[in-house]
């Protein structure tokens, strides 16, 4: 499998505080790569840098060979980012929101309608898509945003806590959507503090704490290496 994303020695300072202390990993084509760690570990900072929202203090990030510092616009064309606490424009209907976002990825190909149809299928919100986003529940907004993130079939979908704040049923649905899209060759970089969720979703994971990656591997490899029944125990053993 070809490497889609390369992260090498990524560092980030917020003033004097070093949030990322030189992390390195790569994401391959069609792979779901999970960054797991406790709150404040540096997961969101890493994702925000790759999503071009934050500038890096050091290191290198490449997507399809394009350097982030030199070609941030190439990143934006090929990624899709779902922030942890994202919202949608409350005055727009669900379908209008999807159309608005789809148009940014359709400069000449005329694929807006195709993107919208795909998003409608992913979101599964039916007729409610014709209602204003302001009337949606939190779960509905999250599904709409996930549909928005996946509708263009980006080279890399960056999902920060994709099931954050969702109930069990909605979380299961969202996980299934992510899994099915990865099967179509889409690469996913996701973060979560829910290690069991990441274990279920990810092909490979990186355990991150205090800005450092402590271990990388498939969930199975890590469990075997640390003789643990699940990733939560793996993490506890590494930290201890």
């Amino acid at each position: 499998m070809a490497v889609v994303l390369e992260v090498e020695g990524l560092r980030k300072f917020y003033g004097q505080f070093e949030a990322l202390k030189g992390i390195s990993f790569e994401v391959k084509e069609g792979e779901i790569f999970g960054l797991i760690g406790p709150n404040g570990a540096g997961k969101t900072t890493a994702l925000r840098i790759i999503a071009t929202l934050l500038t890096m203090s050091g290191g290198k990030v490449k997507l399809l060979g394009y350097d982030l510092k030199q070609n941030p616009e190439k990143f934006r064309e090929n990624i899709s980012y779902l922030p942890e606490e994202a919202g949608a424009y409350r005055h727009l209907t669900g379908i209008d929101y999807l159309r608005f976002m789809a148009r940014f990825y359709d400069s000449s190909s005329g694929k807006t309608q195709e993107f919208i149809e795909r998003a409608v299928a992913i979101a599964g919100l039916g007729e409610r898509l014709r209602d204003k986003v302001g009337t949606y529940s939190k779960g509905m907004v999250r599904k709409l945003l996930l549909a928005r993130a996946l509708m263009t079939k980006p080279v890399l979908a960056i999902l920060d806590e994709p099931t954050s704040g969702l109930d069990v049923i909605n979380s299961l649905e969202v996980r299934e959507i992510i899994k099915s899209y990865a099967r179509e060759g889409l690469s996913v970089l996701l973060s979560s503090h829910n290690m069991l969720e990441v274990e279920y979703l990810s092909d490979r994971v990186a355990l991150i704490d205090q800005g450092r990656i402590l271990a990388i591997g498939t969930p199975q490899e890590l469990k075997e290496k640390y003789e643990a029944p699940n990733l939560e125990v793996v993490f506890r053993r590494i930290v201890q």
Partner: protein
Amino acid sequence: MKKFSNLLIKEIRELINKQLIFSLIFTLFIFYFIGQMTRVEAKRAETSRRLGVLDLDRSSFSRGLLDNLRLVRFEIDEFETGDKEEALRLARQKNLNFVLVIPPGLGEGVEKLEPREIETYTFLRSFSLGAARYSEIFRVILETANNYLSNEALKRKLPEISPDNLKKPLKSRDFVIVRDKKAEASASAIAAFMYTQSIFVPIILAMILIYSSQMVISAIAMEKQNKTLETLLTVPISRSSIVAAKMLAAGIVGLVSTLIYLAGFRWYMRGFTGDLTQVAGGLAPIIKELGLSLTTSGSLILLISLFLAILCALALATILGVLAEDYRSAQSLIMPLLLLVMIPYFLSIFTDLRALSWPARIVIYAIPFSHPFMTTQNILFHNYRGIAFGIIYMLAVFIVLVIITARIFSTDRVLTMKLRWRRRQLVL
């Protein structure tokens, strides 16, 4: 371009919401209603002006005076009683606002040039401008009558001398010079006319600046509050396009709203001033002769100046919008901008900005929004240096603000920069 128009349309749709439309319609209605009401009331007051008269003289002179009052559309309610207090009681009963008491022997006194006092009583039932109107009108009538009577007396005594020459041995012919053009007119009349004509310019300017700026600040603050900014910043469109779309949308909606408000304001003002085009009738040729009307190129310069001021305000508002954490804090962040607009606005209404002391002028000139307030006068008085300085200065300020804005939007600061009021610190 397609991506930019997509964003621009979204921004405009976001700004034109139910609240805005309701507020525009409501304001228009209020302006129109008050304007109409004032006009109707003024007309009604003009057509029926009732006054009570107690004529204790009943000479041919007093009857003539009352006939003349009737000629200027006064409806006279004459009391038959001979008692002043009784007349006032009747006037109160009839809800009259103004009573004249003509003393006995008025006609005879006029003949002998022995003045008698006409008493006037005004029932002050409110403190509105119209409450003392009758008394003022009568004062003018009395002055005219006095003038006429003294002229007649002088003619009789000194038939070889013109009464007017006798009373005013020194006369003046007033000329106004504007640059190299000269016209016979009163300087105060010209100044008053120009003030009435140009009073709308600062009002429009202040409204556009405040309205558009508030929209930009709120638009960015709402993106932050609704957590949509992060997603927007990762879509394939340049950061400068995001900023430009927000600024342009706010500019367009601000301009349209201001024009609507202005139309309402004109309706409202007409209630007080009447149609300005009619007032202009007499002075118009003199204004033209003095070159005090804006030419096409002058109007263009004024538009450029207004446009640059709007751009400066929008750029500054964008930076302030980034500092806002949510919609509520955005409302307080408009204050510094409001002050920068209101200071030159009020000063331009009450004083000549160029006549201020040097330190005050430096402060005023440093505020970019001061320049368009001075542009109209600079154009009319051909102060090209002032115009050029204003335009270049505003352009420079705009470029600096855009560079700062672009820098903020292309770095982490767009997400991390905020103003914390409690700690009173700027967090970068």
